[in-house]
């Protein structure tokens, strides 16, 4: 007992510093999030005097009113439609192009690939006015496709690069062997490449989904009808309507970021790997 006490070293100042530092950063990150969640359970009056603590009276109605409103579900539905369109179209077009760049040798291949990667150089915002006019001239203004197609176009560069890198690792002999056996390129793509590439497809899908789900500028420019708004637009409208009724706005924010947080907790490894890998390898 005595000897144990003696041998135990005093608290290492480095460890103590580390613990304090981590705690401070954790509080810095957590407090705004928790205050938002809890604020949704308070009345406006209580929010003003007690924005940090637990609600004295839990106002479940703030949340239930939103959850039972058609508006909330319509926003999520619109977001889901646009993001799904973007993901599906990106995966199809990018994987087909990446397959061609990875396995089919043809004149101009590297030139076309550099052409596509030009898309990495500048953000969508730079050309958003001409893009608006283009989408209008195509008759796609105020449609889901008017938002999703440009999103696909802007995610192509990164997606093709990531997919191509992965496809190239599939042994070339496998393709040669299949071709000799009378399997076509297209069948090989469908029955060998795609099934073998699930991890990278999931990564590209995740990046595209998160970007599209969170996007604000493109839908803001392309959509005029409230009924088509995805949630980032809808929540801004909501905030405009309830300007200082913060308890309602906080409940609405909590409910709209809830799907993202649930998805993140369920698939955290995948999302972290996807978002950082996408960034690094791009």
């Amino acid at each position: 007992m005595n000897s144990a006490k003696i041998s135990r070293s005093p608290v290492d100042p480095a460890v103590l510093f580390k613990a304090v530092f981590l705690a401070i950063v954790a509080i810095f990150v957590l407090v705004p999030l928790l205050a938002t969640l809890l604020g949704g359970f308070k009345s406006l009056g209580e929010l003003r005097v007690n924005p940090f603590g637990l609600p004295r009276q839990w106002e479940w109605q703030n949340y239930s009113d939103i959850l039972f409103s058609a508006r909330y579900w319509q926003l999520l539905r619109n977001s889901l439609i646009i993001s799904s369109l973007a993901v599906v179209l990106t995966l199809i077009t990018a994987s087909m192009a990446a397959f061609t760049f990875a396995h089919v040798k043809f004149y101009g291949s590297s030139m076309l690939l550099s052409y596509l990667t030009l898309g990495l150089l500048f953000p969508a915002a730079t050309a958003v006015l001409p893009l608006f006019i283009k989408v209008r001239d195509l008759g796609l203004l105020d449609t889901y496709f008017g938002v999703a197609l440009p999103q696909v176009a802007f995610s192509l560069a990164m997606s093709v690069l990531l997919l191509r890198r992965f496809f190239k690792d599939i042994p070339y002999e496998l393709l040669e062997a299949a071709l000799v056996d009378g399997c076509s390129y297209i069948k090989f793509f469908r029955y060998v490449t795609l099934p073998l590439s699930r991890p990278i497809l999931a990564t590209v899908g995740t990046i595209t989904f998160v970007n599209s789900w969170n996007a604000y500028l493109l839908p803001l420019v392309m959509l005029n009808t409230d009924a088509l708004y995805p949630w980032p637009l809808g929540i801004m409208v909501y905030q405009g309507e309830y300007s200082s009724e913060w308890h309602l706005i906080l409940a609405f924010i909590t409910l709209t970021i809830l799907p993202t947080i649930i998805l993140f907790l369920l698939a955290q490894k995948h999302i972290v790997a996807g978002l950082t890998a996408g960034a690094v390898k791009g």
Partner: protein
Amino acid sequence: MEAGQLTVARRIANSPAIGVAGTPFSSLAVRGPAWDGRFTVLILFLPPALLLFTLFVVLPIGEAAWYSAFNWNGFGRPTNWIGFDNYRFVLETRAFWLALRNNGLIIAVSLAIQLPLALTLALMLAERFRGSVALRMLFFMPYILAEIATGLIFSFVYDGDYGLVASIWRSFGAEPPHLLASTDTSMLAVLIVIVWKYFGFHMMLFIAALQSLDKSLIEAARIDGATRWQALRHVVIPLLYPTIRLSVFFAIVGSLQLFDLVMPLTRGGPADSSNTMVSFLYNNGISRMRVGYGSAIGVILFAICVTFAFTYKRWFMRDE
């Protein structure tokens, strides 16, 4: 395909006689089934991506350069040619230079505060201990939240009547400030949110890099008598240089496209004090449908992005 068949087929494929499948078809004389197959793939697989990319990415940039020479509100065809006047108007706008300065501030804060913070946290969290994974996830979480939601959360935090900051101020008996409504503090408030939202992403980049480091180098340094600090300063950090350069690159690119976060917080105001390049473009070009003027801003932003990307790659990322 059966496994047995596959090995046989591979053996055949590897024999030199059938090497045709691997040669480029620039010699049109070789027109086997492989060439036909390739042709079908080229015709079917490339156009969708190329078409979408050309239509929605490349053409609009080209058209921005064209439209920027007109005074045009977007209806009918552009007819009122004014040459380079739009660029002159942009450069004469005080708000443009404020936006540029703000982008510079964002980059400065990213380099001076966010990057060291992310690196320190990464060094602390790279080794596993109880709670380290949970902390990593917590710190990464702000990054996946939509910028719009983040902006709204912080416009509550900063709210002068109901917000967290106001409450802290009041507890000291002081009159709560309206941070977002003052030209002096609006940009500071935005900068804090930027650090809150993005440090976790940079931390994850560093953690990924740290985990793939060759541990024996650090051990060797320690055995040779280097202190922990010396090993960190002279071994670990130099090995992280490529990641640091990458992180700086993302910080700068991110600052140049920052928009969503600013809108719910300040909309670029008050008096343009917290505009970024993109929110300046939105407020002055898009929301008023001044296509020519807005396109000129877009072209300037494009030029900045491309110049930056090329010089940065050439100067700092030669080896990658």
